[in-house]
């Protein structure tokens, strides 16, 4: 059976920038063929220039991507996307503004062949605290944030002076499990929104914090990201490594790895925010272990990642 298709859940209240992010990622897709699921096509779900044709509830998009509206039947839409030939490389699931993204993520376990990549929730810097105090939707909005692996703190350019510092602190309290990425115009690098690759083209030799990766799409974002790719010979105590990578102090946003575990068998590691999943890998026994991580420049120190790996190494 082929590998499960990764699904990134894009959540957040109305106006937070979900649609902008989806369109941005469709433009920055690289070689990926992305299937987008939206609640409804609405007036502005997908930028017109990306649409090649429409067939009922399926839009054919540039670069072999598709977009499907799910309305009130998410399961049927997921099933349909899963059965597409050829299968898409990635699914972006844009929730409705009142959906709880954690509940949507759990729906994925009902279908075989899909795997949760990340719960990415957007927050509108300009209105965040006001909305969080709203008598009707305040609790909903805070719950959406609490369920996030990653929070894209969007529209920072529109926020009040001082909020660039204050809002991340507010979020750290309101959504302690989530990692926060500041951005503007929902311009997140695909490596952060959709995940890192381990293929040859993606693997860099070690970089240091002093040489930030020029990530596509980061140009308008304001924030700079640092990535680090390590190759190593030794086996790894993966439980220990997972715990170290997920510790908030490390400042990692995402990491991906393929390595030998203590039993010598290959396993994969995937970290998004505080959630780290280690699973047996179907890959042939890797000759070399590989680990790639990405974090916010200034928060993430490459030396810490190296130290964490060293501390988890097994002779």
């Amino acid at each position: 059976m082929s590998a499960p298709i990764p699904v990134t859940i894009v959540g957040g209240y109305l106006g937070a920038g979900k649609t902008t992010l989806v369109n941005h990622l469709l433009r920055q897709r690289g070689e990926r063929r992305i299937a987008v699921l939206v609640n409804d096509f609405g007036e502005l779900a997908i930028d017109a220039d990306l649409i090649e044709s429409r067939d009922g509830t399926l839009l054919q998009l540039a670069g072999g991507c598709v977009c499907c509206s799910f309305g009130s039947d998410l399961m049927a839409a997921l099933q349909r996307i899963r059965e597409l030939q050829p299968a898409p490389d990635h699914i972006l699931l844009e929730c409705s503004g009142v959906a709880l993204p954690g509940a949507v993520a759990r729906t994925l376990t009902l279908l075989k062949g899909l795997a949760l990549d990340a719960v990415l929730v957007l927050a509108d810097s300009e209105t965040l605290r006001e909305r969080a105090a709203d008598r009707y939707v305040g609790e909903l909005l805070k719950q959406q944030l609490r369920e996030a692996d990653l929070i894209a703190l969007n529209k920072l350019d529109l926020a009040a002076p001082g909020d660039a510092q204050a809002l991340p602190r507010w979020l750290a309290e309101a959504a302690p499990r989530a990692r926060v990425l500041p951005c503007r115009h929902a311009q997140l690098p695909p490596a952060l929104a959709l995940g890192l690759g381990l293929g040859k083209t993606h693997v860099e030799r070690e970089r240091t914090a002093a040489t930030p990766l020029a990530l596509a799409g980061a140009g308008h974002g304001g924030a700079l990201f640092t990535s680090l790719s390590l190759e190593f010979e030794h086996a790894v105590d993966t439980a220990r490594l997972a715990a170290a990578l997920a510790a908030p102090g490390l400042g990692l946003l995402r990491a991906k790895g393929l390595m030998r575990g203590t039993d010598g068998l290959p396993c994969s590691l995937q970290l998004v925010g505080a959630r780290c999943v280690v699973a047996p890998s179907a890959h042939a026994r890797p000759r070399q272990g590989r680990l790639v991580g990405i974090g916010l420049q200034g928060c993430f120190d490459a030396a810490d990642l190296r130290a964490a790996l060293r501390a988890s190494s097994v002779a």
Partner: protein
Amino acid sequence: MSTTIFQARKIITMNPSRPLATHVAVRDGRVLGVGALDELGGWGPCTLDQRFADKVLMPGLVEGHSHLMEGAFWRFVYCGFFDRSDPNGRLWPGAKSLDEVIRRLSDAQAALSDPAAPVAGWGFDPIYFDNRRCVREDLDRVSATRPVGMIHASGHIINANSAALAAIGWLRSGIDHPGVPLGSDGLPTGELKGPEAMGAVAKVLGMDRAVLAGDEGALRLFSRLCVRAGVTTATDLASPLPSEAVPMLLAVTAQDRFPTRIVPLLRLTGSPAEAVERAVALQRQSTDRLRLGRIKMVADGSIQGFSARLRWPGYYNGAPNGLWYMAPEQMQQAMTLALQRGVQIHTHTNGDEATEAVLDGMEAALRAAPTPDHRFTLQHCQLADAAQFRRMKALGLCVNLFANHHFYWGDEHHRLTVGPERATRMNACATALASGVPFAIHSDAPITPLGPLFTAWCAVHRLTASNRVLGEHERIGVADALRAITLGAAYTLKLDGEIGSIECGKRADFCVLDEDPLAVPSMALRDLPVWGVVQDGRVFAAAELPTE
């Protein structure tokens, strides 16, 4: 241009200028005149029809909140706790134990020749079995090989057997979903809650959404239930109304012997602007017996499912607050657009916080688009308090209250969901009346059985299944209750100029009764026999309906 004068023992007209009469003249499907025989002679030659000489006529009853799904469900095995009549008039006794439910499903499976065919039931409600949960092993007793399942009375849960779960690949570990409880073996117990969890199994059981939304067969079955209940106009609240469904609805309702006026509301699921424009386009396709172009929105979930949005202090048992099905600001946007385009919206609210959000949204929408006589309607609106009724009045809103709910779930509301005090104010018909809010009462069929006279009984007595009077001060009189199931419901649909009373110019829609609902003891309303209906001047006797 023939004229027929129907003679009756009594005609309850609901026209305050002439509340009672003995004769009604009908021409071209409309009421030509009402009064004594000698008052009607001036309309020229006529035929005197005396078949109702010992009957009582009322305006044809109007069900302001039902679903065509009631018709679709009767293709499956009835597993409910209470007695219920099917479209053929056969009374199905309630299944009083899980064993009885299993026996009924087993009988149905024994009658099937195709070994792979599923067995599906509906109307199951374990709250009457001390909440003993049904698990897949129970239904495996029906069949170990063919898919077996049943949908609950609420419509929000399905129980499935092992074969049904295996058929969709769910008899496995690794499922982690709040709607799919797992047993100690790590496998699903067979209870599937909510649309995501139910969808795939429903399809295997032949209960997928398209079927339940109402096809041609379901529409016909539904219309027979209407005749048996005295209903001449019924809503389908709501339907996705896919473009292929509209020609079918138009064709079937136009047939000579189709006995019901159907009012389907378009369910708003996506963009408010698109839905409003679709409704405008649908208005132009309306016919006498198919009234299109209204919208239904859903603000929150249900109180007994703990998914309704409640204000402080929330659920009596401490359950967390429910879910928004639409954002308050989106509802406001939809209401504003609809007011501007002359489209009517009915909004489902159950919890009082959902009601409050719609009241706020409506206030803002009316400021943006001032509209007299919009008759936007709150549907269910079960937990509204007196202040909210006063706001409804001030904003020109109507309300359609879920009177049947007390009987079926009132004891649960008292014990578990909202507690004794707030349970007494649920579906506050007397407060609606005192506040001057135009109101109707409804069944939400198939959630509870289609039967406005039963619904009227519920509003008059407010008795629960355990015989508790829940909210004695919210009881209303029989005359008010009868008005709610005729003119009251017609008013919420802006059809009160055409139906809901028997008077000159209106549709010749009558509910034909053997007994006088104003004269019998009010306890008898519940089981008042319905002879049939006259709809658009056409006579439909329940006993002579086609059966299948």
